[in-house]
């Protein structure tokens, strides 16, 4: 048996996991399922692509960094793109979600996010067309690392980036006052206000973290696969499955859930057939909801 699916699965899982962090934070702190989260991913990726283009126009062609397929322009563009995605999420919250969240029923905000998702997606297709595009057309040579596994320098770099981001977000949410305020908001919003926590600022931080990570996940897909307006929407089901598998509200859970789904998808492609790939996250989601609805790290609500 070829173990290549482990690397493929970890990579797919990283992208799903980074996206699922935003899904799980939005759900536990803002209390609704944001179906536009995948489109934050796509918007972040296209924003990054646009900045890469702008840098190329200003500085000419920049040589990639040693073994990688990209140079400093992509790194700078990713930071700008993440900031742009965060602003997009804040803007959307201001004009749409904050009003809908005030309604008694969460389903209103969920439906609103569906509408926002469609609008964002169509707008991308309108601006950039639906033709796939790439950050780089260079072909990387995969290095054999034993056990029949091959991995490219880009893949290694992105796995390291994922690990660093997950660790950073985990420390932010567990060790800082901002993180404790986020936990407090998710556990008891009324008491959080009484304890002097500014709900509006916690909401902003939540959007910024979720949207920035979505942008990173999107750019990873862009670097390793391709860039399409539908790229984020296609990730929606795996991201929700990962968030629910890990237990809503748990950041380590979302990442672990992402890795499990990524590995299961890659394994299914190798063992059963590529046509089953999309079914895997759906089957896992169903199984979790039946067997352990609160997920791996979840907690029972009162």
């Amino acid at each position: 048996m070829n173990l290549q699916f482990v690397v493929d699965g970890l990579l797919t899982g990283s992208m799903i996991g980074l996206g699922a962090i935003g899904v799980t934070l939005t759900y536990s702190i803002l209390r609704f399922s944001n179906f536009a989260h995948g489109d934050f991913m796509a918007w972040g990726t296209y924003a990054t692509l646009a900045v890469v283009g702008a840098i190329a126009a200003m500085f000419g062609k920049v040589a990639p960094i040693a073994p990688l397929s990209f140079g400093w322009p992509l790194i700078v563009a990713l930071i700008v793109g993440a900031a742009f995605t965060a602003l997009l999420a804040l803007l959307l919250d201001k004009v749409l979600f904050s009003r809908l969240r005030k309604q008694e029923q969460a389903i209103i905000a969920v439906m609103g996010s569906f509408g926002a998702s469609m609008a964002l997606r169509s707008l991308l297709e309108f601006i950039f067309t639906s033709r796939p595009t790439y950050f780089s057309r260079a072909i990387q040579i995969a290095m054999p690392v034993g056990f029949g596994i091959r991995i490219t320098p880009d893949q290694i770099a992105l796995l390291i980036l994922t690990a660093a981001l997950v660790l950073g977000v985990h420390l932010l949410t567990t060790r800082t006052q901002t993180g404790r305020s986020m936990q407090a908001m998710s556990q008891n919003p009324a008491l959080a206000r009484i304890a002097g926590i500014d709900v509006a600022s916690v909401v902003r931080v939540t959007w910024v973290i979720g949207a920035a990570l979505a942008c990173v996940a999107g750019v990873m897909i862009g670097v390793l696969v391709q860039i399409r307006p539908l790229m984020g929407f296609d990730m929606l089901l795996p991201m929700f499955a990962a968030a629910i598998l890990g237990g809503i509200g748990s950041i380590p859970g979302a990442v672990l859930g992402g890795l499990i789904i990524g590995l299961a998808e890659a394994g299914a492609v190798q063992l059963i057939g590529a046509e089953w790939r999309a079914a895997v996250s759906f089957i896992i989601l169903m199984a979790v909801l039946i067997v352990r609805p609160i997920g791996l790290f979840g907690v029972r609500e009162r």
Partner: protein
Amino acid sequence: MNETVLDVSDLEAGYEPGVPIVRGASITVNKGEIVVVLGPNGAGKSSLIKAIAGLVPISRGKVLLDGKDITAAPAHTMVRLGLAFVPQTENVFPRMSVEDNLKVACGILERRQAPARIEEMYAAFPDLLRQRRTPAGNLSGGQRQMLAVARALIVHPKVLVLDEPSAGLSPKFVSMVFEMLSDIRKSGVTILLVEQNAKAALAIGDRAYVLVEGKERHEGAASTLWDDPVIAELYLGQRPLRKDSARHTETGGAA
């Protein structure tokens, strides 16, 4: 000498517009006092202090804290203004450790002050020190109430406002909570509390108000109020004073 810390005048408040639960209530709390608000079920006691804490919309009247108008202040600014509120139930963050429950409340303190202030709370409540790593949801009822009070005290409030601190506690913990409040007052903190357990609350209180149908009907020294016939009439509902308080006879009564 009698410096007023909290001055509530002619307060009208309720969850829905046009349906006031608090109907023109006026109370004052002086520095260093424990003031108790009593009253039959449905009198609006909880709504009154929640309105003061910014949790129930106020439609008329004023709340002054140290002479400063805080009537329209949002709930999350209250601790900064000097008013700390302890809700009756769900008053801790259940899946955060005891220590994180205290830390999260330190948001308005200077960063350097927070650790020392947490140590002071541990010194005052040794039970919490022993359980510092325990998720607050796993504490006993009495310890949870302690944590809720410590969380409120940590920011040096001018007035500590509590909603039925003895509710749902076993008798052993009830006396513990009232002893705790008495000690807190001795340390110089001003306290306003709503209580069903009238006897225990009056034992530690300085003054008390009896609230009926959203308005204070009686005010007196806590020591004499228990023997005052007005308590029996207005609060215990044994002998209706007036027709309009008659319907409280079924629901009224000390817990």
